[in-house]
């Protein structure tokens, strides 16, 4: 049984963008392309100001994803939880869409009696376990992120461990912004496991600018160019023709 692919961008940052396009607009673009954008704000001793908080929430809301601000020490658990929840959310969107087609108008899972919900949940659990997943990780390496990068590395290795326990296939790629010469730089191309990460992070030289918008634009472009066919979106016709 061939199934579609859930596509996500995971943005890890600690503050507000200050260069290039509006990242919220780029998140809207991502969603149109069937890509979910999740945002994790990492704080340490510092705090994210109101503007930064608002941007983090807006990007995720616009990108159909989940946002969460955490202390660096809790990053591992958050990264895996956010990725999973967003995946469930995407799949639930697909299932709800299907339900509307079968049951008509505005019926969602909540309108069904608990017993029926249970059956649908089983289907959803199956999808969560078996669907293919592509996550493009976009890490902010501006100066203030420097001392948080070892924790980010740990968290990403842990994410790979969690997701690779699933039956479905995973592909990860890692981009940093700002890059050495460009706004964004590819560090690791699509790979099923994030083991190579260990050496990758040590070569970083954090800079001042935070071009979140341009970085998102590049990430969307890259996913469009390189990802495997069989996009899973909210209008997941293709997906359900293949899997059901």
């Amino acid at each position, binding site marked *: 049984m061939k199934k579609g692919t859930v596509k996500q961008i995971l943005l890890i940052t600690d503050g507000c963008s200050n260069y290039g396009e509006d990242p919220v607009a780029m998140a809207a673009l991502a969603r149109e392309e069937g890509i979910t954008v999740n945002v994790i704000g990492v704080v340490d001793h510092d705090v994210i100001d109101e503007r930064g908080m608002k941007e983090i929430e807006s990007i995720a809301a616009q990108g159909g994803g989940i946002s969460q601000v955490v202390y660096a020490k809790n990053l591992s658990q958050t990264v895996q939880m956010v990725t999973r929840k967003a995946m469930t959310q995407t799949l639930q969107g697909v299932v709800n869409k299907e339900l509307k087609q079968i049951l008509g108008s505005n019926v969602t899972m909540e309108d069904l009696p*608990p017993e029926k*919900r249970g059956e649908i949940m089983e289907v959803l659990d199956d999808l969560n376990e078996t669907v293919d997943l592509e996550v493009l990780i976009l890490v902010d390496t501006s100066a203030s992120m420097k001392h948080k990068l070892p924790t980010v590395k*740990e968290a990403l290795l842990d994410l790979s461990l969690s997701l690779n326990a699933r039956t479905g296939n995973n592909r990860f790629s890692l981009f940093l912004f700002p890059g050495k010469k460009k706004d964004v730089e590819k560090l690791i191309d699509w790979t099923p496991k994030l083991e190579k990460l260990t050496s990758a992070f040590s070569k970083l030289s954090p800079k001042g600018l935070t071009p979140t918008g341009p970085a998102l634009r590049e990430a969307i472009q890259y996913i469009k160019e390189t990802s495997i066919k069989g996009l899973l979106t909210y209008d997941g016709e293709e997906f359900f023709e293949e899997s059901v």
Partner: protein
Amino acid sequence: MMAKNSLKSLYNIPYGTIIKGKWHKETYKIIKELGSGANGVVYLADWNRKRVALKVSDRQDTITTEVNVLRSLSKAQGMTLGPSLLDVDDWELGDRKVPFYVMEYIEGVDFLTFVRSRGLEWLDILILQLLTELDELHKEGWVFGDLKPENLLVSGPPIRIRCVDVGGTTRIGRAIKEFTEFFDRGYWGLGSRKAEAQYDLFAVAMVIINTFYPKRFQRVATKDGLSQIIEKIEQIPELKKRRKVLMKALKGEYISAAKMKEDISQLKFVRKKRGKQTLSNRRKTREFFISILESLFILSMICLIYAIYVLGKVL
């Protein structure tokens, strides 16, 4: 009605709040909070003068998934590890629908508190009970997942271990979704997060270790996970005694909970054997004494007969 509408969070539903189910029309009166986590809050509630535990959550999928697990477990015969499921419904709160489920209220104290207050001899016994239950669970095709002392309640008398949170319970072969770092073999670099019996058995070993390190300890990223745990085992004599079992469980060498159970009851047997040895030693000493007394008696009899003989000759 006023109170209902002003209720902003599910985390502090006041005493006396009536929760009425939309579908099954049962009513529950909130008594107090029993516990809360990232996935919802559990309240003690009154249902027709019976005490029940009621879980509410913002997340529909959390409730539905947990209900599915509880249902499958209650279908399986003899599965008594988790609480039994009583009801599932929605609570209409203004224009919000809050999903909830109701389960058996298990009264008891948490694992660590129990062992601390009742004595260390209960540790192995409770672990044996837990392994018996886990073995059943694994045979039914499930892995408990988020196994930790907070999720283990000791009820009774008769004293029995129960698991109260099935949020992490996963079908064998699937990915574990809920875990706690200290009890997760993935965190220590000692295995995958795929649900299998060994995943739970690793956590059982960590529960035993947690008994002696109530504050737990963290992994140092630069060092190998296993040697850090071994270091901690070596520091506590009671853990050192259990070293062999712990090591096998940590390394994933037990193919089933039953195998681990065998080794733990062996631990007890060794202790008994040592008891027997002292007993037989004592018996040996007594036998030695008796034999000396016997020889003395025989010797004195011979002396007596000889004396009589000599006397007879003289007379």
